[in-house]
């Protein structure tokens, strides 16, 4: 593996469950991320799979320091970032960006596309005025939109186009790491492949590192170099994409893979016959 961009060691995130009328007391904890260690190599794609509630999104947010971890360490380019103040994190933010699941909820409906994509550049004092507009238009074209879309509002776009706007915003600051949390699961099948291919191209061009979260294992396997499987807040298996999908060692991973429908009636019937004769 190449040199590590992100190193997560014994990361823990617990959410307290509180009870009581006047005085809250903690009665239990949700162990959303429970002692997770992983590394993401520079330029690689690490796919994160698991069911809803397994802690995938919490892990992403904790890695980006959007929520503080309960304990453990997150190193970005060798620098410890867990426990840094907002001010200390500010210059690091431009290195790490996020693409969200729901392209309808993640774009402010009252802002124009130009402003949505340009805000990161403006806030980090990268560009202003005409130069800002030029850079944003370039970004729009880069993600397969047109520079004329600059003055439009999000509602004028389809789901796939909105996701492209979200991607343009994420790459605006030329980050090193992009965390993509279910970036295609809200999209139609015929559009999913377009977005996956776009993310692939951008990675080659900009040398991006992806932490890619999805529940669709087929999609994750396609885009990832390595895959990590999460279950109840813990990592149960990590390996190369083909290793995990073809020779899973963990019982939960095997169960997960066996549940993925095979889009091939003959194969699917054969698998059901095998399952029936086995048990």
């Amino acid at each position: 593996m190449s040199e590590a961009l992100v190193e997560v060691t014994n990361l823990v995130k617990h959410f307290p469950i509180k009870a009581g009328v006047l005085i809250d007391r903690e009665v239990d904890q949700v162990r959303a991320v429970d002692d997770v260690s992983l590394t993401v190599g520079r330029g690689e794609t690490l796919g994160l799979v698991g069911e809803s509630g397994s802690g995938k999104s919490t892990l992403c947010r904790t890695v980006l320091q959007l929520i503080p971890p309960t304990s453990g360490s997150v190193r970005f380019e060798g620098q410890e970032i867990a426990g840094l103040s907002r001010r200390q994190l500010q210059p690091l933010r431009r290195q790490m960006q996020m693409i969200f699941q729901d392209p309808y909820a993640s774009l402010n409906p009252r802002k124009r596309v130009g402003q949505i994509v340009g805000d990161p550049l403006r806030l980090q004092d990268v560009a202003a005025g005409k130069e800002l507009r030029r850079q944003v238009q370039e970004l729009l074209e880069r993600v397969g939109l047109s520079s004329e879309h600059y003055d439009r509002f999000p509602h004028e776009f389809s789901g796939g186009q909105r996701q492209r706007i979200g991607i343009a915003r994420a790459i605006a600051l030329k980050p090193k790491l992009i965390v993509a949390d279910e970036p295609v699961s809200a999209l139609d099948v015929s559009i999913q492949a377009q977005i996956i291919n776009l993310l692939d191209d951008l990675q080659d061009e900009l040398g991006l590192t992806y932490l890619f979260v999805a529940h669709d294992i087929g999609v994750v396997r396609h885009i990832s170099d390595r895959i990590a499987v999460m279950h109840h807040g813990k990592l149960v298996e990590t390996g190369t994409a083909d290793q995990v999908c073809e020779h899973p060692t963990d019982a939960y991973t095997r169960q997960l893979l066996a549940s993925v429908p095979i889009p091939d009636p003959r194969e699917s019937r054969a698998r059901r016959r095998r399952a029936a004769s086995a048990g």
Partner: protein
Amino acid sequence: MSPQPLLSVADLRVGFATEGGRLQAVDGVSFEVLAIVGESGSGKSVTAQTILGLTRSHNAVIEGSVRLREAELLDAGEAELQQVRGAQIGMIFQDPMTSLNPVYRVGSQIVEAIRAHDSGTGKVAGRARAIELLDSVGIPDAARRVDDYPHEFSGGMRQRAMIAMGLALEPEVLIADEPTTALDVTVQAQILRLLEELNRSRNLATILITHDLGVVAEIADRVLVMYAGKVVEQGSLDEIFYDPQHPYTWGLLGSLSRLDRPRPQRLPQISGAPPSLLAPPSGCAFRPRCPHEFGKCTEVPGLEARLPEAPGHCDRCWLSPERKAMLRQVEGRIGLEAPS
């Protein structure tokens, strides 16, 4: 296929008067019992809802025919439809959280469905029936869970409760609109097994609406592919997967990322986006996205059987079957075009 269909839909057209003019959501659909595949906006949900008279409104124009045995449902009055809904045709929806009322106990909601059709059912008998139904869809400890509220159920259990409700009046047809889309794959597998088992043990005709060809391959017998409000291809499960005739179907099959195959360098995609139904392209609706478009495509092709050996396999594409067999071979598998 039985000589007399249980449920048949012919030339169904549903138009909604919207701000942008009349919109053809469902156009000329004919089918018996099967899986309906398509993307959002392709008209699959509108088709299902129209069968139950759920799309009737001042701005809707509905033409064609929906027959349940001898009865024409499109002409039926609201009171008649109430008798059909639930009792003869049950329906389960995609999102089990929004289709259950959060302030009523799960059991009460099932009892309500039963009593709406049979006011003679007492509270005790209704409750016993609700427990029996929850048990039959695999809810553990049903006698206790019957008094739970929806939020106390997991996603899979809620969908099971919805199925129990759909089955409460022992309908002959069950319409399931994306029943597993909101669920995790392990739970999805369980729900699909349950639907399959009900289909066999109760002779329950099932119309499954989905965008997921994997789900289709797991349980469908017949498949109908919809695009921009029209059926573009219909046939048996194996015909659709192994001898697909419409380029859109090729594109759908080609863009799947399959776990049981080596992964391609690039994922084959269908370029462009589905057309707006307010201003559909002239001729074949898939024309703007189709790499195999030619002169004839400016006319709308009829949904016809074009293969003499498969009279039940129909499609809307002008290409000859020989050309299709050649064009759909992309890098050793079925696809629309080689990835750029």
